[in-house]
């Protein structure tokens, strides 16, 4: 019998528990609804394990200090919501280019601007992909339950460490604030990945030269005896700034490629009853729960409807969606925005299936009935 704990837990709390299980030792952030529980629990728990928590003076500083903590060798995280996610974007781009592993939690609330601070939304999905300037690699995960929040936070850290890149956990107010029963896996059931480090005393260490045959460079921490330079300018394999066209091109293509060639390791999804489906509801986050309920009700009514639940939203599950539309010619994307992820689905299917959208932006969750009504309309 494994030592598993069963308890009622909030999504935001499960996020911290997952982060701690993954080895998080550093948190820097700024208070913002509906993510504040994450900061509060980190403030409580991190000193108990010798970790560090700091409330910074603003959202930008929260992101900057998170990157600093990671450079000093600690697994680092910050959490925010829409307005703060906007403010953090420049430094997120820095982490992508300088290849600093870190995890950014965005508990999405209704926007734009201050919007509806206590209401759920999925309005930051495209911002996660395109929020910072320039091309950059993006990994974004979106849990639908408290247990998935725990699991995907661990996964977010593992991917950040493995690929030396910032990773987003796109929560929404529904999942972040709901409490539900969770069975926490035992420690030995959890896979934890740490960043690759250079060998001690390696005098030939180059901070941005990938390991032989790979795409990710080993990462030393400040204070370990490697004198190396980190910059947000385009840089050579030593880390020093360059204006060289070829070196710049190689760098940007490499950091994109380290995600592109590893999509099978990064992309996670779940499917239900898609084999014979005339229509697939493709959903993510809190909305996927409504979608699942609607699919069950549709099946009870004899409608051939399936569910595709995207757990990794960036990179998108392109290959699998292309396979699915060889049988299923209709896809419905319900989401708490006026049409974001549906654009990616339309791009993927490229006219080979009929894509419908159900958007809602009044600050309330999409109900199963609303999805069912839409299913009947488009089937």
């Amino acid at each position: 019998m494994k030592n598993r704990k069963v308890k009622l837990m909030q999504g935001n709390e499960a996020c911290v528990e997952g982060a701690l299980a993954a080895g998080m030792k550093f948190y820097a952030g700024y208070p913002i609804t509906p993510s504040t529980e994450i900061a509060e629990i980190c403030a409580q728990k991190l000193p108990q394990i010798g970790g560090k928590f700091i409330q910074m003076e603003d959202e930008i500083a929260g992101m900057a200090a998170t990157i600093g903590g990671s450079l000093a060798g600690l697994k680092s995280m910050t959490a925010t919501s829409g307005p703060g996610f906007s403010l953090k974007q420049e430094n997120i781009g820095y982490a992508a280019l300088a290849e600093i592993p870190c995890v950014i939690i965005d508990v999405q609330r209704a926007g734009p601007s201050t919007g509806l601070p206590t209401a759920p939304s999925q309005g930051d999905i495209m911002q996660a992909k395109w929020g910072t300037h320039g091309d950059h690699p993006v990994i974004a995960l979106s849990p639908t339950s408290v247990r998935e929040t725990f699991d995907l936070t661990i996964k977010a850290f593992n991917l950040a460490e493995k690929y030396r890149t910032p990773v987003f956990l796109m929560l929404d107010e529904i999942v972040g604030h709901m409490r539900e029963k969770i069975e926490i896996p035992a420690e030995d059931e959890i896979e934890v990945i740490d960043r690759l480090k250079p060998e001690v005393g390696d005098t030939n260490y180059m901070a941005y030269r990938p390991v032989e045959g790979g795409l990710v460079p080993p990462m030393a921490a400040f204070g370990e005896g490697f004198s190396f330079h980190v910059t947000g300018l385009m840089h050579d394999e030593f880390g020093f700034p360059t204006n060289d066209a070829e070196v710049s091109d190689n760098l940007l293509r490499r950091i994109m490629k380290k995600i592109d060639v590893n999509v099978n390791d990064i992309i996670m999804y779940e499917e239900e009853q898609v084999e014979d489906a005339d229509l697939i509801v493709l959903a993510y986050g809190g909305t996927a729960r409504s979608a699942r309920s609607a699919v069950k009700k549709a099946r009870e009514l004899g409608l051939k409807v399936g569910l595709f639940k995207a757990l990794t939203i960036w990179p998108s599950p392109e290959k699998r969606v292309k396979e699915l539309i060889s049988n299923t010619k209709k896809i419905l994307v319900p989401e708490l925005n006026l049409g974001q992820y549906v654009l990616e689905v339309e791009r993927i299917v490229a006219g080979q299936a009929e894509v419908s959208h159900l958007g809602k932006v009044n600050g309330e969750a999409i109900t199963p009935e609303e999805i069912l009504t839409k299913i009947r309309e488009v089937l």
Partner: protein
Amino acid sequence: MHTGSELLKNNFRMERLPHIWCPGCGHGILMKAVAQAIDNCNLDKKKVCVISGIGCSSRAPGYMDFNTLHTTHGRALAFATGVKLANPELKVIVITGDGDCTAIGGNHLIHSARRNIDITTIVFNNNIYGMTGGQYSPTTPTAEFGTTAPFGNIEKAFDVCKLAAGAGATYVARGTAYHTTQLIKLIESAIENKGFSLVDAISTCPTYYGRKNKKGSAVDMMKYLKDFAVDAKVAEKLPKEKLDGKFLIGEFKKTTEPEYTEEYMKIIEMVRESK
């Protein structure tokens, strides 16, 4: 302690030199002063981090042979706070400019000072945005010119030292690119202070600030630093009219207060004991 070419070899990435600064720029002198102060303090090189933001000043760490981090505009102190808290064993030195530190990064400056976190900040203050081509900065004096103040600056300038002292820094001083011996000593004291320290290091920018404001050649600008800087201790004994048009250099504040990362370590000990 190393001097001359030994100082260079021990503290600089020789292969990265020469630097990109203009002829007559004071930043090279200031960078060497920082290196000399680090060397004089006998710090463990492995544990020294030099962190900068964006601008002319912020290119300095790339030339210096330590753990170096060139961050985003204005955010050097915020990155530095993360590095220092994550590993308090590190000696963290921030090199920043007047715009980087007091305009876009002003919030991080006052809060780093308020926390009294053990970071040594050296402001390479040239009274202008040099990297972007001569726009007025928060330390450009009123009525002077920049490319974005073509009719004269109508804003008041910050006194960076008063700003830092008022916000809670525990060591505050000003030096210049001319008075290097004194500047090195001030930076040494700043490094040795356990808490947030700031040295306002006055530089020269003949290319933009000098040209825009008819300050003459680089030599003339150096001469201005020599003739118009008055030591704070000397100034105390001088009548007010003798200080007209002058600026003060030397130590302005030196106190001892609880340091942030030490206080945090006490929290860790406290919660671990009570567990």
